[in-house]
């Protein structure tokens, strides 16, 4: 099972992944999130009653993402058992809720959420690159620049991936039911 494999890799390769800020943020955290995403597909949708358009789920995803982009917090997870556990649990949950939230959200909500997430991530990435000082005492300045470039790339990739996935609507091949009364909503509610 893919999710378990990813999670085990993120856990087992910890010393190597967390040795650098770039691999920590751009390999380990995404691996945990993807594991969560895969789990999200199998989990039931019991909490839909308080998650209209996936708003609650997506809000949690935003906050969890923001939290682990605070360098101080990221550093605390290196060698800190409590914070490490919190990181794995919260990022796994965020990945799960991203899958669930996006499935519940219409395209307008998706764009709103994704736009904000990408902007936040890219800005954090740019700040990492511009900081002349070490953000984490365990990571070098050179490392945080690489992590910064990675975060900007990740933000661009996420935006691009959404566009590719929705290219039929974007390119007018398929009618967009939000701009006309054409087809009815097809995504799960």
């Amino acid at each position, binding site marked *: 099972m893919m999710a378990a494999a990813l999670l085990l890799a993120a856990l087992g390769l910890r010393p190597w992944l967390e040795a650098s800020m770039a691999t920590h943020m751009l390999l380990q955290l995404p691996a945990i999130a993807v594991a969560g995403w895969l789990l999200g597909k199998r989990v039931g949708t019991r909490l839909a009653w*308080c998650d209209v358009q996936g708003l*609650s789920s997506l809000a949690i995803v935003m906050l969890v993402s923001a939290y682990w982009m605070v360098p*101080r917090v990221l550093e605390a997870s290196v060698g800190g058992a409590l914070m490490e556990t919190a990181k794995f649990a919260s990022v796994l949950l965020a990945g799960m809720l991203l899958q669930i939230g996006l499935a519940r959200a219409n395209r307008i909500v998706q764009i709103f959420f994704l736009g904000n997430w990408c902007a936040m991530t890219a800005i954090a990435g740019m700040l990492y690159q511009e900081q002349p*000082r*070490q*953000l984490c*005492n*365990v990571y*070098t300045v050179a490392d945080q620049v690489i992590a910064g470039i990675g975060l900007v790339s990740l933000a661009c990739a996420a935006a691009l991936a959404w566009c590719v996935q929705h290219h039929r609507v974007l390119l007018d091949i398929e009618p967009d039911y939000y701009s006309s009364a054409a087809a009815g909503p097809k995504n799960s509610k």
Partner: protein
Amino acid sequence: MRILANSSSPIAATAVALLLVAVLGVTALYQATLGFRVVATEEARRLKIREQPLLLPAGPVLAGLRADGRVAIVTFFYSRCITVCSSLGSSYQQLQSAIVARGAARQVRLLSLSFDGRDDSAALSAYAAHQHADSDVWQLAALPAPQQRRDLLDAFGIVVLPAPPGEFQHNAAFHVVDRTGHLRRIFDLEQADAALAYALNLAAAP
């Protein structure tokens, strides 16, 4: 929430859930950034010390600081360092001259602590001679046993990263420690004057 669930309004339930999520999230971020004031580990370390002076762990260093009875400006170094420590050395030389010039050698002193296990007393003497350290004003010491070294570095919040070949990278700064052995304030390497002014102020206080 259950009441809301049973009522017919998922929108109201979502609004409540969102509010809850926002409160939790903002609280977590508030705590993580010490009240939206810091994001970097080093800033947090300095802010915490500024607000809550820290008594150093018991050991030869604390005993030495108390026995000496002067306010100390402490830095960490290793004698083989060829990068930041050499600039640190020169700002220490300037601090040393400033202390002598002010006739403050009885109030304030400089203390360089080596965290490198390879630094023995011969290495330290060579380093001190090379830096023209005046032994009345500027003392150097190697940190004792590994466990005590770790405790002291932890208490100060110093993170030492091994950097090839045979070098280290560490968060270098001026640490002002008062006569009772409390770490009171941490200054940037560029703020030598501010560190000295603060140390003199501390020394003048009853």
